């Protein structure tokens, strides 16, 4: 399926509209802050509309994953071609975009979170122009990763995200922002190098025969990398179940595990969250973490099905450890933001456990959990932001009795909290249910241990609610004002989704059911 607007594909629009916004922002005078803000809001708003169109016309039955024919809104142009390189042959890098059931929800999530992030950035006063320019660049990077089907392009978008994120934390962050930014940078940078090396190894191992010229061509095309027939004889990553394939899988896995973040690669996250300004925390937890699990599903699983099966138990175990470890660490925090950061580690562990089940329920649960966690955690970080804006405090013991003082805000925040503790009727429950169901079929004991996480989660969430929202309102908080209309606006779409998808998740699950079923079959058949 193709969809062009003014002759340009919809995916190009959705990826690059923030860049257009960024250019306009850079051209606007510094003083005109509102014009800058509105530009960002319009650019991300258009993205939301485009995502809505994609949601409406997306063909739910098409498979995608490894089959180029059934990707949707595909755009493929030759980008860089070098004809004859000694002992390599022709090299080509394509501008190759397309989405399937795996990426479509992530597109929707990214555009929504990016838009809400702009609304919540409204009261950023420091270097407004620079802030929004970087913000929009970041959005392009994220969106690009979710639509890229060429590994090189994927890598470029991946690295494009890194810089704005680094500066957004490092310049607009809290007191220890430098430390946090460097930590974030080093972690992701190390991961990036691992991915770069693997990408090159894959590139030199994969070649396909150009039907036009009969020439053997190396390629970065991710779909070609999934086809065992395309591996050249004697290539580093050719064959099945070779040591090098395991090494390559592991290198990619570490890169993605850092992003997820999975125990023990997670310690950048609490620091980054604590120092980042609220909207950046929202983006970070709402979208960026999902890139990790998305990468596993888009790259590790279908390109290395053999290694995936080989390491899957290990991966499930790491998921389990993240769930329990993250939950206990969350309970031990006395900084509201750190608590949510660790709860993210715990909830992303559920994603990993679900997809490690290698069956459809688990896979659907995992991807839905990516979406749901994005929504829920955005609500939680916005909730902290609301309090921080008013009091410049984040300590769990700095508050109390907020429910009496700010009833509207407390109602909305508590829905987010309840969704995070997996209350049925709200979206978090549905995805946890399917993740655990899938995982239970594959790993009985790992899953049973993981499910104890729901008890610990109830513990730290309710304890948080008690400390922050319940109790008597102390004197110092007696003049807190309830939400402004702008703040209500940023909460409402997320809360509506939390409830809607909690009651009736079918519209989200329909989007991915065929693609993920196909992915499961594909892996279990060893990529044939």
């Amino acid at each position, binding site marked *: 399926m193709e969809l062009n607007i003014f002759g340009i594909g919809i995916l190009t629009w959705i990826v690059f509209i923030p860049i257009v916004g960024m250019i306009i922002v850079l051209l606007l005078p510094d003083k005109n802050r509102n014009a800058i803000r509105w530009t960002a809001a319009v650019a991300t708003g258009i993205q939301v509309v485009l995502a809505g169109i994609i949601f409406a016309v997306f063909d739910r039955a098409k498979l995608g994953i490894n089959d180029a024919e059934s990707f949707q809104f595909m755009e493929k142009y030759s980008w860089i071609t070098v004809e004859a390189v000694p002992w390599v042959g022709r090299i080509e890098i394509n501008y190759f975009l397309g989405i399937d059931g795996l990426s479509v929800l992530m597109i929707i999530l990214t555009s929504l979170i990016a838009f809400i992030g702009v609304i919540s950035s409204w009261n950023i006063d420091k270097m407004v122009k620079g802030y929004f320019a970087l913000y929009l660049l970041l959005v392009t990077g994220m969106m690009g990763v979710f639509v890229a089907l060429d590994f090189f392009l994927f890598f470029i978008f991946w690295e494009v995200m890194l810089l704005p994120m680094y500066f957004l934390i490092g310049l607009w962050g809290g007191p220890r922002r430098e430390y946090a930014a*460097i930590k974030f940078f*080093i972690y992701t*940078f190390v991961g990036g190098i691992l991915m770069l090396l693997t990408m090159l190894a894959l590139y030199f191992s994969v070649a396909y025969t150009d039907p036009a010229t009969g020439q053997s061509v190396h390629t970065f095309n991710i779909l070609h990398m999934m086809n065992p027939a395309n591996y050249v004889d004697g290539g580093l990553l050719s064959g099945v179940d070779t040591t090098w394939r395991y090494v390559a899988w592991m290198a990619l896995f570490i890169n993605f595990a850092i992003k997820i973040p999975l125990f023990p690669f997670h310690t950048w996250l609490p620091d980054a969250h604590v120092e980042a300004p609220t909207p950046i925390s929202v983006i970070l937890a709402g979208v960026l973490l999902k890139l990790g699990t998305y990468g596993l599903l888009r790259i590790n699983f279908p390109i290395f099905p053999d290694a995936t099966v080989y390491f899957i138990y290990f991966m499930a175990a790491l998921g389990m450890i993240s769930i329990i470890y993250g939950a*206990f660490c969350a309970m031990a925090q006395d900084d509201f933001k750190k608590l949510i950061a660790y709860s993210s580690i715990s909830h992303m562990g559920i994603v990993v456990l679900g997809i490690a089940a290698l069956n459809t329920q688990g896979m659907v649960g995992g991807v839905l959990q990516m979406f749901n966690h994005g929504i829920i955690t955005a609500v939680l970080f916005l909730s902290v932001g609301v309090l921080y804006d008013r009091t410049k405090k984040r300590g769990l013991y700095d508050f109390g009795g907020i429910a009496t003082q700010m009833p509207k805000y407390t109602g909305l925040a508590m829905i987010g909290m309840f969704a995070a503790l997996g209350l049925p009727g709200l979206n978090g429950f549905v995805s946890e249910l399917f993740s655990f*169901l899938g995982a239970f079929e594959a790993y009985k004991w790992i899953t049973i241990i993981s499910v104890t996480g729901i008890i610990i989660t109830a513990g730290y969430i309710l304890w948080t609610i008690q400390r922050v929202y*319940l*109790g008597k309102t102390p004197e110092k908080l007696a003049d807190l004002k309830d939400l402004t209309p702008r703040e209500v606006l940023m909460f409402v779409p997320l809360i509506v989704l939390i409830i809607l998808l909690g009651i*009736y998740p*079918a519209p989200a699950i329909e989007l991915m*059911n065929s693609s993920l079923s196909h992915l499961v079959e594909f892996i279990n058949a060893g990529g044939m």
Partner: protein
Amino acid sequence: MFTNLPIIILLLPLLAFILMIFFGNKLPRKGDWLATGMMALTLVLSVVLLITKVGSHSAEVFTSSFDWVVVGSKTIGFGIMIDNLAAIMLVVVTLVSTLVHLFSIAYMKGDVRYSRYYAYLGLFSFSMLGIVLTNNILLMYVFWELVGISSYLLIGHWYEKKSASNAANKAFIVNRVGDFGMFIGIMILFISFSSFTFEAIFDSISAGQLPFGSEGWLTAAGVLIFCGAVGKSAQFPLHVWLPDAMEGPTPVSALIHAATMVAAGVYLVARVFPMLTADALMVIAYIGAITALIAATIAITQFDIKKVLAYSTISQLGYMIMALGVGAYTAGFMHLVTHAAFKAGLFLGAGSVIFAMHASLHKLHDHDTDAQDIRNMGGLKAKMPVTYWTFLIFTLAISGIPLTSGFLSKDEILAGTLAFSTINGHWLLPLVAFTVAGLTAFYMFRLFIITFHGKAANEKILAGVMESPKVMTIPLMVLAALSLFFFYSFNPFGASSGWFYSAVVRPASMVPELLQPAAYPVFYEAVSSVHTIAMVLSIIIAVAGVYLAFMVYQQKKISAEKLAQRAGFLYKGATNKWYFDEMYNRVFVNGSHVIMKALRWFDETIIDGIVNGAATVTQLFASISGWIDTNIVDGLVNGTASTANRAGGLLSHIQTGKVQTYLLFVLFSFVVLFILFL
């Protein structure tokens, strides 16, 4: 009739919740009459449904469902199921809920969050009706947790009090422990049978399928599902949350923590009864018996009027669970129904007393005296006649005195346990059952006498006590009427001839024959043969309990203190609730604190230590190369003379954390070079 009506019944309270949460404060009288009226309407509809169902479609089961979601190739449907069990339960829930709505109009008058309170009552009623109506164990779990959250919100209604929010947390978390087991049980069933509906699960089991092909897993699945009931129905060892839940407003205790939600566990066991193996049922029976005994012993020693009733509720729930465990299915469920009426009555009666005490203490400007401590009461009989007489009927009913509803159901349970022991020799169960019957009569009359009879503990307080207003006494009278025998059976000495026994019949077991409990005809025969003995025995024991209570607390011929002394460590243990809270605090609460602190330390010291160490090493390399760079460049440009001077400055510049620029540079050059190379 049986598809639309139940859905209307289910959704009306939800609508009330939505209306109250958004518009409650803007409505006249903050919407209390609207909420109460809507609940009364659901009651009327439920009664109509029950009469039609039991009257003319008694043997049929009506189900209707829709596809909720398709995952992979599995379709998950949601739906409702109306059998006699559900139809009766609907009336129980809506009736108690309506009366509690009515009662609260006076009891909660002037409360800071009055309309919020009614909203949560609506949310609770909706969720509870969901549990009753569903045909599906997953949906059951969904509503199961939703009643949990309503209970959490209502226990914490007065959240300014730390004790209230603590109690709310405890209730939810302890329930989560039970729900954890239930969730695992549900997963086992779904993985094995690819469906969540009771019907499909039972069909698969009766077709000889076993979870993971093993009989042990079938028993395990049953016991795990039962874990949900252990949490919700406050069974040993998860009973600790219910007494604390008394922090909530008293009408809430009547509705949620006495009559309906806590009985949901019993309802759950009744629902999954056909898939329970004999082993699973044995576990259930013993858990029920242990609970009944422990709670009854604690109830004797408590002085808080609500705490006594809370432990009595736990004990009676244990009774019901034990009844189901021994196979006295109908008796167990009937006790749920009769208990709902008289226990809701007892709580509302207690509410009426507390309300009067509060008003009196308020007039005296006394803020130190505990309005719930029965030692501060006494002699209320004269001042509160309606509360007194209705409370007497409820107390007689729970003690199992003939002509009450409680006698009918309790008598059948006692006969059931006795019959069970004649079949397989588990004599401990009837022994516990009869002991608890005696204890119940004793502690209930102890409560009754200390509260209403004798001399007032403080004449000034008594002088200010007044009978509660009509909205509070009318619910008491309704419930008192429903605590008499003729609503359930026209024969005051035998429930089995009444409509209830013909409407609720024990379902056939679906498990493989070798795992089945004693078949119904065998059990029924055993019950018939011991019924007369059980009845005589139960009357003697109940009357003895009542008599002893009168001796100790009315006539004071036996000193309560001396009795307590003689009981020694038993009394001490019971007063201290057998130290469950202390033990759980030490093991679980402190345990998780230790774990979380240890993990936090590990995270911040070990893992971050490694990360920071790596960063330091990188920084070191960077500064070395920076030093070389600087020297060479400076040497070329300026000569070596001024180098030392300037290098110091630059070095410190590098070392203050500008490594990122290096890394950035490395990365960028990498990418750029790569593109250029191509």
